[in-house]
């Protein structure tokens, strides 16, 4: 069966520090991968998506970047975190009609 792993679950980082959130998918090949962010009390907003290795598309301008070094690995990064980067980050994958979310990372920038 297909599973998606996302870590860490929670993270507290100082302003100006780097960020690396990782997401891996098992049980499927060539999935479409996504990073979403959820601000407090709001819906999810798509940040990045990838339809293949090395292919990254950005939905909104921001302080973050994404990379896909392997078929089933998707990484969200930042060189210098801002306070406004705080939020709940969810990785997801889709194949045909299926759309599955990871368990999320709660990021607090202090």
């Amino acid at each position: 069966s297909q599973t998606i792993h996302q870590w860490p679950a929670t993270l507290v980082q100082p302003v100006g520090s780097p960020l690396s959130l990782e997401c891996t998918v098992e049980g499927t090949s060539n999935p479409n991968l996504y990073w979403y962010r959820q601000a407090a009390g709001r819906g999810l907003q798509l940040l990045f998506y990838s339809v293949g290795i090395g292919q990254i598309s950005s939905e909104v301008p921001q302080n973050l970047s994404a990379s896909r070094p392997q078929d089933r690995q998707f990484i969200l990064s930042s060189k210098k975190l801002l306070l406004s980067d705080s939020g709940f980050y969810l990785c997801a994958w889709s194949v045909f009609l299926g759309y599955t979310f990871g368990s999320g990372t709660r990021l607090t920038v202090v």
Partner: protein
Amino acid sequence: AQTVTQSQPEMSVQEAETVTLSCTYDTSESDYYLFWYKQPPSRQMILVIRQEAYKQQNATENRFSVNFQKAAKSFSLKISDSQLGDAAMYFCAYRRTIQGAQKLVFGQGTRLTINP
């Protein structure tokens, strides 16, 4: 651009009663998918129900059903025989396919409380 609107920030219902959550969307596309997701306190996103726009028949999953009105661009969720475990944030979402990727556009969510 596609937008999704949930006009009810909060709803409450007595256990075993029925509740309907509202959702409207805006699109110029004719082929798309609509979803309802549940987000409990764990914040895991759980798919509740899916509706294909080309299907006139409303989707049903056990106690959950939708009222899909394509012309009115309305997609409401009905929960019958509400249970305490139904308490959560509910998000309506529109899915569009662009360049091979399936993107979800979410509403702001409705917080559902179940009163025992």
